[in-house]
């Protein structure tokens, strides 16, 4: 069930009532676990079976790894667990992609392998990455295993972030879960505000932008280059508001129960280069990729050749990491290409030292053009992300390069306004050093803000509510 459904509202109200009645931490955790299972099973009970299996295997393995003194055996346990998790992910998400790719490659030789009808469990990419980070962190000593199966199961299935993240680290989240629910008026108000903020982002902005995005990507050849550019930039903005909107709603729901989630987006469109962009966009994923793929790979490359200017040392880790990042998003060559290009640009920024701009103090005059460049570049690359096929991506890109630029001009004003809002708003926040993550409003303004948020969401929501974009991952 989605946060924007009557079923969720009903379930959440029941949860709050039960948590209000039963104060013992263990009982509350059991209730949270039950609700998480109901939340997930609502889509499909088979999904629940998969996550239960993954949870049990990983919990048992974590105890083995933690208690293992023989380094070789420890390593084997870690490897076996990692392989198990990757096999689960690989089977559900990549099996048919792999088979289709082989068929395309060897089809001319008369080889045609059959694909399977595999249902993709919702959020599998998110929770597998979480379980992987859990076992790897236990292995390197940066976290201890959960104190009980109940705590770990809750960590693995906690419903606010189960289907679309953020990807949680055990070291940050397990202590909170072990402490239990922290129901206070302050937490509830702050959570409610976060939820309202996410609601606005999703149903007022993101879904409205979907109007032009869907049309442009459906019929790119019909529209003029100007319209296609507007559609492409609108998609970047839509993706931001959709995904950060969901993250805010997830953060809000968790906060209402007294749990804190890490920030997942930090004004990505104020980035001055792609390196900084990935420090601000989907932070839970980018830090995961950095900590578990990029850094270990970079270190192993450096051990072989200690020169910092050795080109493979600069290019390979970035490209491989982002190829994996692309593949994480989806089992298509479009995603792989998207990731690979991002990796290439990251490597080039590292090589030319442009990446160091991310650490420089902000200067609006100097930063304005780089910011616009990053928005245009990330939007351009997002064509591979959004286009339903490589041929559609090619059609869109031709228009972006003004090949066959003629077509219907459609100036979708909301798209233009929201894109401007993102840039201008980001500049204002940066300029005045505003902290948007902590809503420290006094009570009168808070009440007014809550009422206005929900009123605006109700009034300006677009026709239906489109599914969250990141549900497909």
């Amino acid at each position, binding site marked *: 069930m989605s946060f924007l459904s009557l079923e969720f509202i009903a379930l959440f109200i029941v949860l709050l009532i039960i948590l209000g009645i039963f104060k013992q931490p263990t009982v509350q955790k059991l209730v949270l676990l039950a609700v998480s299972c109901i939340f997930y099973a609502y889509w499909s009970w088979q999904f629940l079976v998969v996550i239960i299996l993954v949870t049990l295997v990983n919990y048992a393995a974590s105890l083995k790894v933690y208690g293992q003194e023989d380094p070789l055996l420890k390593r084997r346990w870690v490897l076996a667990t990692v392989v198990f998790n990757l096999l689960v992910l690989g089977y559900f998400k990549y099996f048919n992609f792999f088979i289709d790719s082989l068929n395309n490659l060897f089809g001319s030789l008369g080889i045609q392998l059959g694909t399977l009808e595999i249902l993709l469990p919702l959020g599998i990419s998110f929770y597998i990455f979480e379980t992987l980070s859990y076992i790897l962190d236990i292995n390197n000593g940066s976290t201890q295993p959960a104190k009980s199966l109940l705590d770990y199961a809750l960590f693995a299935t906690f419903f606010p972030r189960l289907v679309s993240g953020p990807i949680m680290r055990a070291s940050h989240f397990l202590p909170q879960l072990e402490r239990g629910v922290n129901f206070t008026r302050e937490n509830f108000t702050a959570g409610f505000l976060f939820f309202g903020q996410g609601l606005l982002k999703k149903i007022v902005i993101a879904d409205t932008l979907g109007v032009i995005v*869907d049309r442009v990507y459906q019929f790119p050849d019909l529209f003029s280059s100007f319209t296609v550019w507007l559609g492409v930039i609108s998609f970047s903005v839509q993706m931001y508001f959709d995904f950060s909107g969901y993250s805010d709603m997830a953060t809000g729901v968790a906060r209402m129960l007294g749990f804190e989630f890490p920030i997942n987006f930090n004004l990505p469109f104020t980035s001055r280069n792609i390196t900084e962009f990935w420090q601000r966009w989907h932070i839970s994923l980018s830090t995961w990729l950095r900590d578990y793929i990029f850094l270990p790979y970079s270190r192993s490359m450096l051990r072989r050749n200690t020169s910092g200017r050795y080109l493979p040392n600069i290019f390979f880790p970035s490209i491989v990491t982002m190829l994996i990042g692309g593949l994480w998003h989806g089992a298509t060559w479009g995603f792989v290409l998207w990731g690979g290009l991002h990796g290439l640009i990251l490597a080039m920024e590292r090589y030319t030292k442009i990446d160091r701009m991310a650490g420089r103090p902000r200067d609006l005059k100097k930063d304005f053009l780089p910011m616009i460049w990053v928005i245009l570049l990330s939007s351009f690359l997002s064509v591979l992300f959004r286009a339903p096929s490589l041929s559609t991506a090619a059609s869109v890109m031709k228009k972006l390069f003004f090949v066959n630029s003629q077509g219907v001009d459609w100036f979708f004003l909301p798209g233009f306004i929201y894109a401007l809002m993102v840039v201008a708003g980001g500049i204002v926040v940066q300029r005045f050093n505003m902290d948007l993550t902590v809503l420290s409003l006094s009570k009168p303004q808070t009440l*007014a803000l809550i009422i206005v948020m929900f009123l605006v969401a109700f009034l300006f929501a677009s026709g239906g509510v489109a599914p969250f974009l990141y549900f497909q991952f």
Partner: protein
Amino acid sequence: MQAALWVLLCLIVLELFVRFFIIQIPPKQYVEGLGVVPADHSRKIWGLEGFGITHYLVQGEVYTPRQTGGSVVVFGDSYTEAYQVNDADKYVSVAEEALWANGMQINLHNIGYSDRSVADYIYAAPHILQTYDPEVVVVQLNIYNFAASLFTSRPNYLLEQDASLVLKHDPEVPDLRLQQVVRQFGLLSFLYYRFDAVNKNLLRYVNSLRAPVPAGAASAGIEQYDDVENLKQQLRLLQDAYRETSLVILVIPSLPMITRDGSMVWSEEKDDLLLGAMAEEGISYVYPREAFISLYEDERKFPRGFFNTPSNYGHLNADGNRALGIALANYLGGVLK
């Protein structure tokens, strides 16, 4: 107390924004022989689809630039009311100006109002003929206006009796008091409008819980209408109602249609069904297909869609109204000479 003040402040700001940029619904009145229409000398602001300010004269007539000359009535639904564009951009105004530019001093009376059906057009015929004494009555409609005539929940509807259709009229005058209160405030009007939309979705959802709705059946009543015999019967009733004047049917093309592979199609089954029926009944009609084709081919513009709605979807935009108005003016110019 402070919280209440903050809330009030926010609501005032929102009210002003909604009132001037989103929605301002005019008060309504009941006109005997016509039905519920906007009050005399009222105004509608509509910013949910395009942006338009519509002024009303008396008895629901929409303002057009000319108030003198020969009388022609254009009677239609939301396409004719065209509240998505300003008065000067509505196709009736465009047609009127085009006629005057060609030396024909004709006053086109725009009697457009949302959600009309063929039954409404038939019912209002005596009122229209008496009030405006027109040389020509142009009735704008499409296939959906025929389907809507069969809904017995409407004030005017057509009922099948002894193998023929009979006009039925609900004599109850609607209570407009609640609407009069609501329309005082832009925010309330908007809430009322949104709540109505949400209510319909909620009902559909609740019904789907009771019994699964097969795909495409949600609006089966109108979308699936293809009863040619019923269509002809309604056309005959319409013709009979306006027998004292020249009747012309204006059919707004449901074109262009864009297929799944992005190609343009310039014919529509439902339009052809209606055109065929009118041809068989010997009814004069205007179907400006060429004008819409030309709009796309020469100017690369769609006749529908606005800066805040999907492209090629919904009501006619200013370009579509312009193309339609010129086509209507060309036809009337020939007929009235």
